[in-house]
């Protein structure tokens, strides 16, 4: 199939259909509204169902209902909307239902702004909601990868019966890049398996439930979920390491679109002879600790770059376990670090004496007048 030039958000919608997901429930929010808008047009064409929910709270419970009856289902939103889904996500994870959700992150906290950010890393990977559970979190850094990971998300969700979040930022949602989609145009439907509520014809009835009156049973269920997460952790870590065939002066750690900015900076500096390596997790959860450690082992020091105040930094520290000095460059509020910002920071850091472990406080950034947006 040939390439099409497509907006990230629309590509996400199309990817879902290719994956055989014909059910969407969601609520508009910038910068992801093109997903529901695209699917409102496309799903009826392929016999699918598009429902605009009255809120993200409702949307997240609708996907619970749809997944519970054994269909492939998607919702998409952006930061504040994801927060409203917290309770339902805990239910979905507890009931082991396969759903896929996409978070095109915007600036926060609060209403924040609609420009790109990566401030929901910790929410996605650690504290999504109450109780012990984990989302599988995938972070694409191109539109094509968004397509691939959305499709992969459905597989993971179903293999492990666990909710999967594909996390991007406003940039990846709004930008166009060429993408290729696999055939067929509409994926095969989900096999409802032995758990979905399809009506109890010729079989014992089934229950989708997360309440346990017996604490021992609830305890066992938690251990079961934890064991599942352990399996996921062992089998599903994905990451990318670049320029690490020889030891490097500095390793840039980043994820999503920020990685591409780092890549440009790295290329620039490598042209000057500064050895810059790159590491990015593709699965933010499970975080590829060993791969990150291995990458760090090949570097003199580390610079973590994120569009937030240092959220992945904690995972990098957990990976590195104090063996390397780590600096941090962060922006927020919709400010995107430029490749030049990254390059400058690298020079600064390499020039300075190696500081032991950066604190989560990012170095204060001077105000850059020319980037003011209306």
């Amino acid at each position, binding site marked *: 199939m040939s390439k099409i030039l497509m907006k990230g958000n629309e590509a996400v919608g199309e990817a879902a259909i290719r994956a055989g997901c014909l059910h969407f429930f969601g609520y508009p929010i910038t910068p992801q509204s093109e997903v529901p808008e695209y699917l409102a047009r496309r799903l009826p064409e392929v016999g699918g169902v598009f429902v605009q929910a*009255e809120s993200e709270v409702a949307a997240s*419970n609708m996907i619970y209902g749809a997944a*519970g009856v054994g269909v492939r*289902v998607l919702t998409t939103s952006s930061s504040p909307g994801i927060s409203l889904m917290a309770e339902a996500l805990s239910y979905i994870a507890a009931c082991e239902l396969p759903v896929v959700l996409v978070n095109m992150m915007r600036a926060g906290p609060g209403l924040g702004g609609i420009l790109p950010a990566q401030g929901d890393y910790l929410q996605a990977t650690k504290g999504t909601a109450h109780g012990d559970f984990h989302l599988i979190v995938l972070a694409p850094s191109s539109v094509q990868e968004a397509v691939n990971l959305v499709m992969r998300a459905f597989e993971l969700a179903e293999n492990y019966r666990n909710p999967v979040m594909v996390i991007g930022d406003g940039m990846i949602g709004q930008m166009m890049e060429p993408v290729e989609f696999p055939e067929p145009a509409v994926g095969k439907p989900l096999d409802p398996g032995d758990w979905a509520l399809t*009506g109890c014809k010729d079989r014992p009835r089934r229950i989708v*439930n997360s309440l346990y009156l017996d604490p021992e049973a609830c305890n066992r269920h938690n251990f079961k979920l934890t064991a599942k997460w352990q399996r996921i952790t062992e089998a599903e870590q994905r990451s990318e390491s670049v320029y690490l065939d020889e030891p490097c002066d500095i390793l840039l750690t980043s994820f999503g679109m920020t990685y591409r900015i780092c890549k440009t900076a790295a290329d620039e500096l490598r042209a000057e002879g500064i050895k810059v390596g790159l590491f990015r997790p593709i699965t933010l959860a499970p975080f590829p600790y060993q791969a990150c450690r291995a990458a760090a082992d090949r570097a003199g020091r580390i610079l973590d770059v994120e569009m937030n105040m240092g959220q992945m930094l904690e995972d990098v520290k957990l990976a590195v376990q104090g063996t390397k000095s780590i600096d941090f460059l962060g922006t927020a509020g919709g400010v995107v670090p430029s490749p030049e910002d990254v390059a400058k920071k690298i020079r600064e850091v390499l020039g300075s004496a190696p500081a032991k472990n950066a604190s989560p406080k990012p170095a204060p950034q001077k105000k850059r007048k020319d980037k003011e947006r209306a």
Partner: protein
Amino acid sequence: MKKIFSATPLLVDRPTHYCPGCTHGVIHRLVAETIDELGIRERTVGIAPVGCSVLAYEYFNVDMFEASHGRAPAVATGAKRARPELIVFSYQGDGDLASIGMGEIIHAANRGEKITVIFVNNAIYGMTGGQMAPTTMPGQYSTTTPGGRNVKEVGYPVRMAELIASLRTPAFVARAAVHSPKEILRAKEYIRRAFSYQVAGTCFSLVELLSICPTNWGLSARESEKWLEREMMPYYPLGIKKEPETAEAEVKRG
């Protein structure tokens, strides 16, 4: 001898956890009998709420969900839209449906989701120990209105059946009570009609059922029946509030 009344196989054969006299049990039976009578057991999916009936999934002998507090209509929407061939019903208390779940029930009704909602109005939060519900009667004691519900402070009880009936989208909406055999029979009829509309694919349907909570009302079952009749029934008039046929006609008239 001929058995003319016995438990429907649609109810799982086990004692419920409800308090003595609690009419959740009656409502369970009516719903179960209806599913049985309509022959839809094998394609029915029920949704239990958070409330005393949280364990409803243990009692109905059909595929069941347990929903988060108040969101059963959204769960029902997801299930029904995904598999329109299923008969989907939610079973919800007044805290669940009328307080935290107000947005979800109104929107499900307004979208005309082809689901059936069994709404148990016992004027109290049963499960959590007797706090005020939106449907608690003026002056009624609850643990969060220790001086009785003061309408100047917290407003009047919400009449959900009327509120939902006032929406333009065609629907079947009715209110019955389950404190006496006579009203139980009427309740059964409404429930049967509600499910029948769904079976025919006609419309959204909701039956509000005035129910007793002896435990949290602090009354015996017998006193509770009387209290329901005396205090609740005048404020919550029984009857059919809306029928799809007349609603359609109204829509046509414009």
